[in-house]
């Protein structure tokens, strides 16, 4: 996973609430056994006509937003399925940060596992950032995870909250499996205690 420290980039305005994971990446594109290559189908139904041509009005089909690294959107972004293909598709398109008033839980979680920073800010702040995003190349935002601020084009700094552990893992680009395996002895102790306390807990065996 790539570390996330600070990012300055073009922000695409997506002023809609409840953008679900089927919108971010429809189920028919989940048949891959890889993580990469999903960017071309990110927001597929919003982005393409039935014949596969681009819808010229959709923001990510317009310059400079084809190069957007940040999305500014509204409430409950990423609701619906648990598919990690949603953050994979965003990442493959080039998005490293999503700013919204709220996120669905599983999507929010999945972002951190893939080096994407979800930034939660109140609706009225998101509306102001939406205005910045509409300025295109003149409205570049900086998202600084180290200092936990979003910097607007006029230099105004907006602080945001982020879970301390997730922040550290993201800053260092760390795999959290390695982190957990440091507690291997505790896991073993737990398993032994569990067998003693709940001996009726069956093993799954097809033998």
């Amino acid at each position: 996973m790539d570390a996330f420290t600070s990012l300055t980039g073009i922000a695409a305005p997506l002023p809609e609430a409840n953008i679900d994971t089927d919108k971010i990446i429809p189920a028919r594109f989940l048949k891959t056994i890889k993580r990469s290559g999903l960017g071309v189908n990110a927001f597929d139904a919003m982005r393409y006509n039935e014949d596969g041509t681009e819808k010229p009005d959709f923001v990510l089909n317009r310059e400079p937003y084809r190069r957007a690294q940040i999305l500014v959107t509204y409430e409950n972004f990423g609701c619906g399925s648990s598919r990690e293909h949603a953050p994979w598709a965003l990442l493959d398109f080039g998005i490293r940060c999503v700013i919204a008033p709220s996120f669905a839980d599983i999507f929010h979680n999945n972002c951190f596992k893939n080096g994407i920073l979800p930034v939660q800010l109140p609706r009225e702040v998101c509306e102001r950032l939406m205005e910045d995003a509409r300025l295109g190349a003149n409205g570049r935002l900086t998202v600084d995870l180290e200092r936990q601020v979003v910097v607007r084009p006029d230099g105004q700094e907006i602080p945001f909250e982020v879970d301390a552990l997730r922040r550290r893992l993201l800053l260092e680009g760390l795999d959290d499996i390695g982190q957990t395996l440091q507690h291997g002895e505790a896991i073993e102790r737990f398993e032994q205690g569990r067998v003693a306390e709940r001996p009726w807990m069956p093993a799954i065996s097809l033998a």
Partner: protein
Amino acid sequence: MPTLFDKIWDAHVVDRLADGTAILYIDRHLVHEVTSPQAFEGLRMSGRRVRRPDATLAVVDHNVPTSDRSLPMEPGDSLTQIETLERNVAEFGVPYFPLRSARQGIVHIIGPEQGVSLPGMTIVCGDSHTSTHGALGALAFGIGTSEVEHVLATQTLLQKPAKNMLVRVEGTLAPGITAKDVMLAIIGTIGTAGGTGHVIEFAGSAIRGLDMAGRMTICNMSIEAGARAGLVAPDDTTFEYVRGRPFAPSGEAFDRAVEYWRTLFSDPDARYDRVVELRAEDIAPLVTWGTSPEDVLPITATVPDPADAPEESRRAQVQRMLDYMGLVPGQRLDELPVDVVFIGSCTNGRIEDMRAAARIVAGRQVAPGVRAMVVPGSGMVKQQAEREGLDKVFLDAGFEWREAGCSMCLGMNPDKLKPGQRCASTSNRNFEGRQGPGGRTHLLSPAMAAAAAVTGHLTDVRSFN
């Protein structure tokens, strides 16, 4: 004064990190073909093994054809994904129900059915509808593929505790009202983000009165209310359901298990962060009209007018949904013609759902021009239905009687809507394009879906009773 969630949580904390994040032990990990290939690949690349194959069960469901299984699958991405899972389970020693096994089925149907999912457990799967298993009084939730890999490697997850929400439904459901209507009413009340950050415990006499299938329907759609998980405290209904299932404890072990399971309830003075109350008597048969599960109305209602929305952003949203759904304000919902009827999914693919639909269908015919399909949730559900003659009821009426899988709930296999087709569906999501690009989904109960198949339009099932 702990809640049921608190009790299950506390019983599974292995260790705590400095910031309070818990390492939470996972009792059961269910695996399917769509969200696992990259996780197994990750294990391979880092030289890790599956820590507890004996706590893991794999099955194919999302991608599988529901047509004749004696035929070979067509080559392509779906087959590749299935073959990849088969290679992975063989390499890592994970128990697996293959496509042509009678035990194959939708992962959230087979977990409870096989006694793999039990009260008091922590259960995860790379699928948001894992919340289904909460009906047994287990803490069950969906995870992403990175977390699938984390559980495969460590049998734990890094988690922060959720907030507690209580949804209490008191009273008696009117005839024709099902668990699906109850859950759509709850989602309509609290909204699709209403449960964000919370685990919802469902309680009250109307929930107690539901059978396990109904409780699973309710918990299944907790995710549509934005919740991390749904829970129903286990009781005698639960224990009788579990008794005798293939992977459940038996004999003395079962009695000891029940003794423990009886401690799993929220204390009378338990504190909730939020409490929502509904009266069972207020719930009518419901259908969704929009493209979010919260956009739900009684079947007797008319299509809403965007002009009635309180604010501009909602007006625009309603208008967009009506445009997508091909609806105009004021249309009667019970006059909307349907092209397709889909009965199945992890929400409503159990034997009780098949029976409820068959009761409406018996002696009637599918309306001309309607494609009506029943997709049992598992091979075992299919066999049971066939023993009861339900397949005959459906086939005689003109329904398709198909093999088990996720099917048209999410349109990953060939079962898809065509653009513009209107579908009465017992599934869980009416998102744009969910059942196929351009498809229009109305969520409802199995009985309501069966009624729509017979009349050719959305129909108040109470007119059949």
